[in-house]
């Protein structure tokens, strides 16, 4: 795991703290950061309040953005376990959902749900900011349910 970017958002007034895990060399990590910026800019229209940064201790959602190689797989599992019970997982992008363009590769996990339970899958390669907003709403519904 090369970078972990802590991001906290409040969706419809409910604090949902996202902890983005960006696998090295994966484009979705960069795209996720860009998408969260736009979510912040669209605050008024979306009622998604991107106001603070969460630490790994306080985050309650793990965002897996990028290609999960078999080499990185143990780290993803370790990060999930570190978040404790009740942690939610967002799969961001095609690679995290299914392996994406690398679904047939010997070195890529064809879906992060083979490692950890996933609560919401945001499609795209990479997903658009609008797709992230939709994913956050879906996740919030799930969290509230």
């Amino acid at each position: 795991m090369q970078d972990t970017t802590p991001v906290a958002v409040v969706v419809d007034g409910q604090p949902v703290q996202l902890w983005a895990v960006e696998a090295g060399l994966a484009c979705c990590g960069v795209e996720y950061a860009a998408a969260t910026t736009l979510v912040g800019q669209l605050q008024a229209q979306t009622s998604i309040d991107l106001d603070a940064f969460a630490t790994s201790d306080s985050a309650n959602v793990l965002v897996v953005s990028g290609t999960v190689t078999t080499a990185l797989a143990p780290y993803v599992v370790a990060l999930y376990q570190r978040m404790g019970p009740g942690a939610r997982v967002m799969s961001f992008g095609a690679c995290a959902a299914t392996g994406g363009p690398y679904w047939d590769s010997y070195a890529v996990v064809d879906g992060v749900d083979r490692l950890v339970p996933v609560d919401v899958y945001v499609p795209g390669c990479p997903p658009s900011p609008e797709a992230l907003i939709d994913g956050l709403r879906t996740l919030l519904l799930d969290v509230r349910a």
Partner: protein
Amino acid sequence: MNSQPRRGSIALNPPDCTSCMLCVKECPDKCIHIESHPVVQETGGARPVTVQHLDRFAIDFGLCMYCGICIDVCPFDALAWIGQSTASAATGSSSLVHEMDQLAAGWNSSDD
């Protein structure tokens, strides 16, 4: 409907699809699934013609790169971009596989 790439989703107009399989062949991710069967049609002419009847058309949006190659390659403009993003899925990545009725609904509801 719009032939220009944009960051929305992809819709299908089933009546325009001839099951020619070009999109399936060209999709870099192999995430389009088509099933069809031949139907013999009497034309009233000297001989009947055989056409393919489309039974299944699905796009796995869990895999799709939104590259638009399928849209570009379709000779019959049966595929098109729509502005609305593909909805997120909460019940497994397999629910990102959109079948023909869902893809057609996107086509019909698009206001492009």
